[in-house]
């Protein structure tokens, strides 16, 4: 899983039927020290995350499809947690 910060939302009308009504969030990946790495991904949300929050993103297809309970969903990235606190021990 990846730690990142939600920085934005993507709106779409014409999409694959699976994504109808799904909230798409832009998540900026974080470095170990918590600073933004410049890399990002677009993930769907399963926990009610919003812009500005630090989140946990699952970036693996089979696990993601298990969460949405669909064997055929073309899905890889899903937000699975909102982070309260991270303890870093460098």
């Amino acid at each position: 899983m990846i730690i990142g910060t939600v920085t934005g939302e993507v709106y779409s009308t014409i999409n694959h039927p699976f994504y109808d009504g799904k909230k798409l969030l832009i998540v900026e990946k974080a470095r170990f020290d918590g600073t933004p790495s410049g890399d990002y991904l677009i993930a769907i949300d399963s926990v009610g995350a919003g812009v500005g929050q630090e989140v946990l993103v699952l970036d693996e297809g089979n696990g993601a499809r298990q969460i949405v309970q669909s064997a055929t969903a073309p899905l890889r990235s899903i937000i699975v947690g909102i982070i309260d606190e991270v303890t870093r021990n460098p």
Partner: protein
Amino acid sequence: MLLGRVIGKVVPCVTCTGLESVPMLWVQPLDKTGKPKGSPIVAADSTRMAGPGELVYYEGGREAAMTLDPVFVPVDHAVVGIVDDVHNS
């Protein structure tokens, strides 16, 4: 998934079984701010509606093939949706 800009269409005359009549788009990957990042890729179009100039989001890997019907086709990137708007802080 990542953002991309459709920069062209690709029309193959001979394709693998399962890829007949699947539209192929030439997509320039974009960074978070919409600037081009990396080399263009050819992606299958699962919306069947995207065209040059449009902002899209695409999936890579195994999940790309899963956007199509049948799903067991040799595809490594696929356009999943056309972007109406992006709100980015």
